[in-house]
């Protein structure tokens, strides 16, 4: 069912985002000070929790995961790092501005990964894949999963990571969407064994450094990213004139909490967070804990296959039957809470009213997201961001099929079902 364009605009406006430059004269008020102080307390609380985790049974891996999640939550919220927004604005509005933080993140991530991979696996030609890096099998299931995931993004209004950070902004549609993701994982588990035998077990796992070495793989990746950046310039909005005014503390404060972060800052923080995560814990991903929660909840109900064939031998956002929070759980907690803090400080924490139609479309879209993320062994963060950074062909294939899914979703106007 189609809605008038005005509704679409309204729905888009529901994704609150900061003005990109000094947005007029709205003065800093006492309320801003109170909100920012509260936000600072929340962030300090996260840091203290990370310090405690360091000495807890979760150890440094838990602490580092929470810190990485915190950095991501702030960068996602402040830079509006949302794959759905990037794709939709590019397709529907012919505005490619949002793509630049992603391209920067991939360039920073790939450069950092080249350094780390050189330490972890000095000889990329040895016939081994780097430990745990998200280098996945490339076959029709990956393409199908990307398409379905993209469709789910259009229907639910975001990918998994976006729903997590927008939960922090008070976006209530994220709740049914994330519930849908849990259900979708369950459906994914149920269909996994058949799909694994039909299309995953014999699929190749191409990894650029195995052919080109680390230098060659990095050169090719940066080259492709630069080419994309150049091609997308055509539809990039004009730059705002630089303000010739002295840098003052209030301006710095506004730049941090109110103005939208630049592509360079957002992309660098996200890219570095990915490198730090891989170096210290595991490749960045946001679905491992969600998938594990789904698997744990369904284990013993008889609804899941007794054994998920080959799943535990594949690199990706691994799921397991767990009774507790994993490191990935701390990352997700850090992401949501830090995004809340960033939104609160900037006055962008605005709980939205949930409609029945919005909730149902988000739930259904979430199911598609969950199925896609389970079948692709990760989402736009795990497979696309961490995969391309690690020079996996699977990352590029997932990106392309996801974009195609989003395109189809927009053509079918499913994103207007809010």
């Amino acid at each position: 069912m189609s809605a008038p364009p005005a509704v679409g605009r309204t729905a888009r406006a529901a994704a609150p985002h900061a003005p990109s430059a000094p947005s007029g004269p709205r003065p800093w008020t006492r309320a801003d000070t109170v909100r920012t102080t509260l936000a600072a307390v929340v962030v300090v609380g996260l840091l203290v929790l990370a310090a405690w985790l360091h000495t807890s049974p979760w150890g440094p891996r838990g602490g580092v995961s929470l810190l990485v999640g915190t950095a991501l939550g702030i960068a996602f919220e402040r830079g509006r790092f949302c794959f759905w927004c990037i794709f939709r604005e590019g397709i529907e509005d012919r505005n490619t501005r949002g793509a630049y933080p992603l391209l920067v993140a991939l360039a920073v991530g790939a450069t950092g990964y080249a350094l780390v991979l050189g330490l972890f696996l000095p000889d990329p030609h040895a016939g081994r894949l780097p430990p745990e890096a998200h280098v996945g099998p490339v076959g029709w299931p990956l393409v199908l999963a990307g398409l379905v995931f993209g469709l789910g993004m259009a229907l639910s209004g975001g990918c998994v990571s976006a729903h997590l950070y927008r939960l922090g902004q008070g976006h209530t549609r994220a709740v049914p969407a994330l519930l849908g993701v849990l259900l979708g994982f369950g459906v994914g588990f149920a269909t996994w064994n058949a799909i694994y035998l039909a299309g995953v077990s014999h699929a190749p796992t191409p990894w650029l450094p195995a052919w080109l070495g680390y230098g060659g793989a990095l050169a090719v990746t940066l080259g492709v990213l630069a080419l994309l950046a150049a091609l997308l310039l055509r539809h990039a909005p004009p730059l705002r004139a630089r303000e010739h005014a002295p840098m003052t503390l209030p301006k710095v404060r506004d730049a941090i909490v109110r103005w939208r972060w630049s592509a360079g800052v957002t992309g660098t923080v996200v890219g570095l967070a990915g490198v730090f995560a891989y170096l210290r814990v595991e490749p960045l991903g946001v679905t491992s804990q969600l998938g594990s929660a789904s698997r744990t909840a369904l284990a013993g109900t008889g609804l899941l296959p007794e054994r998920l064939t080959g799943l535990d031998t594949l690199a990706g956002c691994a799921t397991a039957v767990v009774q507790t929070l994993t490191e990935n759980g701390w990352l997700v907690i850090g992401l949501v809470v830090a995004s809340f803090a960033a939104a609160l400080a900037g006055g962008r924490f605005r709980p939205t009213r949930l409609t029945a139609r919005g909730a149902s479309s988000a739930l259904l879209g979430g199911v598609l997201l969950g199925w896609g993320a389970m079948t692709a062994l990760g989402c736009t963060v795990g497979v696309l961001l961490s995969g391309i950074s690690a020079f996996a062909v699977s990352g590029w294939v997932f990106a392309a099929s996801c974009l195609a899914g989003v395109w189809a979703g927009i053509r079918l106007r499913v994103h207007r079902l809010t």
Partner: protein
Amino acid sequence: MPRSTSRPAALAVPILLVAGLAACSSPATEPLADDAAPSAAQGVAEAAPALDARSEVTGFENVVVSTDWLAEHLDDDKVAVIEVSVDPGLYERGHVPGAVNVPWHTAFVDTVTRDVVPPERFTELAQEAGIDKDSTVVLYGDSNNWFAAWGAWVFTLYGHDDVRLVDGGRGAGESEGRELELAAPTPARGTFEAAQADPALRAFLPEVVEVATGDREATLVDIRGAAEFNGEIFAPEGVQELSIRAGHVPGAVNVPWVEAVDEDGKFKSVEELRALYAEAGVDGSAPIITYCRIGERASHTWFVLNKILGYDAKLYDGSWTEYGNAVGVPVTNPAGTVWGGV
């Protein structure tokens, strides 16, 4: 008595009977039969002769090193440090400076045939790790050295005598906040050549069946948890059931491997270890065979009995996943759990 060494068991039987066990101490020089591919598992077809498994180098001070000792010997050219951890990715995110990583699930085993790595590949692995014949090989790993101990057994099996474990394994260095390194080293190529697998150190199914039926004297030490030993479960929680019978080899005693270490993962004192196994009737007066589920954890107990206490102990690496699936062998199943039953 020094261990008799290094002949494929099937060929060695008649020669050993004539020459006498103790006299046979030269390395194998006779080629294998033309149609026999070199394999670690010579002697599968029949039970091995009664070879003494006692190692030449034994005693706590000769086979276990502290983290302090390790820190002092990091620059020693004659010390080769190897990490064998169960969890992938641990080594890469920080290891003892200069330590070489050996992935247990591909490097120490043959990935097609169920067997330890063949001798040529083991030679390659050891030389790449910079190991010479006279190197001191020091292994450590996660999970209280489970798989490091498996590595120590494979090194001993292929004729490297000076093999040691770091007391407490990876966890000891971590809890002490020891220096870790990220870069994987590229050591100068070593000269170690694997001997033929030492038949004295390895038990195969026929030999274990002979022990079970009382036709051979040996003490079987089952190091799994009590619930597995008693046949209440087929495998520990979270681990796939790979055997279709529950229980244990008749006559085996149950001493879970974990009883050999303190809470911090370090080995108990020699006196405590001796008393622990003596209580179960294992005092070194009879040959010992250790086994577990897939063969790796039992190498931890093998290390304690053979290398630390100096007993005549060998490893049955086929363990329960072979024995519990073998047709027609005697089984003791106190709990009576039926496979596939409801």
